[in-house]
């Protein structure tokens, strides 16, 4: 599990770059991670990220897109607009969490 430095943050990541220790994440790092994949975080992004972090803390696994939309109350369409292309993976990456494993 590689240890890397990202903009002054020492983090452990998997082969794809996802954080392997959610505790190494903070909001400042989220901005850096977002910039790595071409995103600038707005309040709308933060709403999704805060839900993901809180839900992960409770469930121990990353919420799927559907879970973010139904429990996090953010419409699927909006998630696609905020995190274009691959919203579930992009959200997880910026939130410092593993990729979601659920099918739906």
């Amino acid at each position: 599990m590689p240890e890397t430095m990202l903009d002054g943050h020492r983090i452990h990541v998997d082969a794809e770059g996802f954080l392997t220790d959610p505790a190494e994440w903070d909001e400042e790092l989220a901005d850096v991670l977002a910039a790595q994949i071409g995103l600038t975080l707005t309040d709308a992004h933060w709403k999704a990220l805060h839900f993901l972090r809180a839900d992960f803390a409770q469930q121990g696994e990353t919420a799927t897109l559907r879970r973010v939309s139904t429990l996090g109350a953010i419409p699927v369409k909006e998630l696609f607009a905020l995190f274009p292309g691959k919203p579930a993976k992009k959200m997880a990456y910026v939130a410092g969490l593993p990729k979601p494993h659920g099918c739906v």
Partner: protein
Amino acid sequence: MTVHDTTTDREAPAIVPQFDAVDEAAPGRKLAIICSKGNLDMAYPGLILANAALGEGVETHLFFTFWGFDIITKKTMGDLKFTMLGNTATHMPQGLGGLPGMTAMATSRMRRSIADIDVPTVPEFLEQIVASGGHLWACRMSADMNHLTTDDLYDDVEAIISASDFIEKTAGAQLLFI
């Protein structure tokens, strides 16, 4: 846009996931799913795969034909059934499936298992697929056979089109027949 890290000689460079990289093996990847069956258990595979493809940024088109038409017909879409008849995967004696009430029981049991793992009902699933940018198409021949028009279909079905129109729309797509 990439922000460069402050890597020193001793530290590994940052690893950045390539979410938006074009897959050279399949640039502009497209998926066409033909849903030809209207049983509850046969509706879900197409919906789940469509949803997964959309979540990976793949352009996805679903074509509902023959019994698959039930999935997008307002009158039937919320009431698809699962029968044990002719299905050895239930690992129950085949004769049982023919007893009165067995289809209703098997259907409600399956619905519950699906809901338990937080998978949406068929109409909700279609809603999610459309919200994710998926395209729903209805088969012209199936509409004619059943005397149905767009008014009878789920509102987000884009149009009733012929099989050849669907093939034209999905040029270059990977195709899945269910």
